């Protein structure tokens, strides 16, 4: 019962506070312009189903230590979803609010414009978590991926991946003057970074040089940490520190360069 009551009660509670009202409207905007939902949930889940149904992806390979290609793609699709939301879902609305003067208008009210940024973060985070749950549950239950070896490591890896990627999105919102600009920068970043995450060639199949580069990219590090938690155990320090480093550096840069008008 209570699990049904909560989603019903949330909008009512939200209306009582300014932040709740901002989040509520951000949810409506996300729903009415579902670019983020399509990129963050729709496309990765569709790819998951397609890859799950491909016989060649479900063949156990000796060269992968008995794993299937599909098993390798589960963390890649998780990172695909996070990257979509961080590099496109988060910065485009923020840049458009600055372009329209929404943030400037808010700074003449008792509510600081940073609350819109926080509300966007909350909404994108919720979309990300929904997407990840669908990918993990469907990947394991429906398409036979192995259950995560180290749940704590997985949670930590996902948390650090979000912490490392979202500030990059904020930095894109800081650099772009318009929503279109943010969209261009986001896509220019997304595709090469997804290449190093292994979307076209999983890391296990990458030649040495590419793998070395991949280790230093945020999406490559995220895939490594998530994949290790799923298939081996607690992930090594290197990718976790790499993600933490991106969080610190881009967090600092975004804070330094973000403009409200």
């Amino acid at each position, binding site marked *: 019962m209570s699990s049904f009551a909560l989603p019903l009660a949330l909008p009512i509670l939200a209306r009582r506070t*300014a932040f709740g009202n901002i989040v509520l409207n951000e949810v409506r905007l996300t729903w009415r312009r579902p670019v983020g939902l399509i990129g963050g949930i729709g496309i990765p889940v569709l790819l998951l189903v397609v890859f799950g149904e491909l016989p060649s992806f479900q063949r156990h390979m000796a060269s992968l230590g008995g794993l299937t290609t599909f098993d390798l793609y589960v963390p890649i699709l998780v990172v695909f979803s996070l990257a979509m939301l961080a590099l496109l879902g988060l910065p485009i609305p923020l840049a458009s609010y600055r372009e329209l003067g929404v943030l*400037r208008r808010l700074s003449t*009210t008792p*509510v600081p414009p940073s609350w819109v940024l926080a509300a966007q973060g909350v909404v994108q985070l919720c979309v990300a978590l929904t997407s990840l749950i669908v990918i993990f549950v469907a990947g394991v239950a429906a398409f036979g991926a192995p259950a995560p070896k180290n749940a704590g490591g997985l949670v930590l890896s996902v948390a650090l991946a979000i912490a490392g990627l979202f500030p990059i999105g904020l930095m894109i919102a800081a650099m772009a003057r318009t929503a279109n600009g943010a969209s261009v920068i986001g896509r220019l970043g997304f595709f090469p970074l997804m290449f190093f995450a292994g979307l076209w060639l999983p890391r296990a199949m990458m030649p040495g040089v590419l793998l070395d580069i991949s280790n230093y990219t945020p999406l490559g590090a995220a895939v490594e940490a998530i994949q290790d938690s799923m298939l081996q155990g607690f992930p090594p320090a290197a990718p976790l520190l790499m993600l933490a480093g991106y969080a610190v550096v881009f967090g600092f840069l975004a804070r330094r360069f973000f403009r409200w008008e």
Partner: protein
Amino acid sequence: MNGSGSAVEIAHLRKTYGPVTAVDDVSFSVAEGEIFGILGPNGAGKTTTVECAIGLRSPDSGTIRLLGLDPHGDRDEIHEVVGVQLQANALPAKLRVGEILDMYRSFYREPTDVSELIEVLGLGGKRADYYRSLSGGQRQRLSVALALIGRPKIAVLDEMTTGLDPQARRDAWELIEGVRARGVTILLVTHFMEEAERLCDRVALIDNGRIVALDAPASLATRARDGKGVRFRPSAPFDDRLLTELPEVTRVEHGGPDVIVTGTGELVNAVILTLAVAGVTAHDVQLDSSSLEDAFVKLTGRHLHKEGAMA
């Protein structure tokens, strides 16, 4: 807050953008409950002055107090008591009017009754409409509604009626008079002479970042010339001396078939009566009263935007 003192106190405000001085030593004060106009051509420094006043920009020097509060030091409190309407459209296209109003309402401690407010603004039937489907005039009125939603003590309205058709403009003026009747002080930025003359208790004329004159609109207009004028077409020729001998008349000019008489006091009565006694009827009598526009031209040597050119 401070009784019947000043709602707005601005002293020696100065703001430069690189080599350009946007506002240069501007000082004025606005009494509580007053409608104070800031009038001038585009680029005169009106908006910069107002943006400094509400804390959107930091002045290079000078002091600003709104109800005794400093826009930078007392940011939170200022925004609770000062409602602002900015020039640019600033709302997401895919939110509904009601959703926008409910959100802005939640920002304030003691918000006004939204239904009543949008009824007065003629947006009552628009609550379920998306912002992007509103006309320019409706967006403008919504923007005014958001400025008033927190029951402000001071309302700052920047180019409130730009882009409105004449009827909507008159409706907006009535609304502003209604808001003032509730005791709200209004700082009105405009480049419409008619608007300033109709609404404002006092007007600051700004040109090139400086206040060139500050007075009631009528006083400014009278100051613009040495008196008033009357223009008419006489039924028969007459000797100019008939009129120039009158104490009220200072000058008689001819413009085609028309005669233009400038003077003071009960000028019109004196002219028409004198002509009637001489057997001359004055046709098509027009009062050539000087306006703020005249005042502005006289003080700056330049014209403001003509009303017609803005529509």
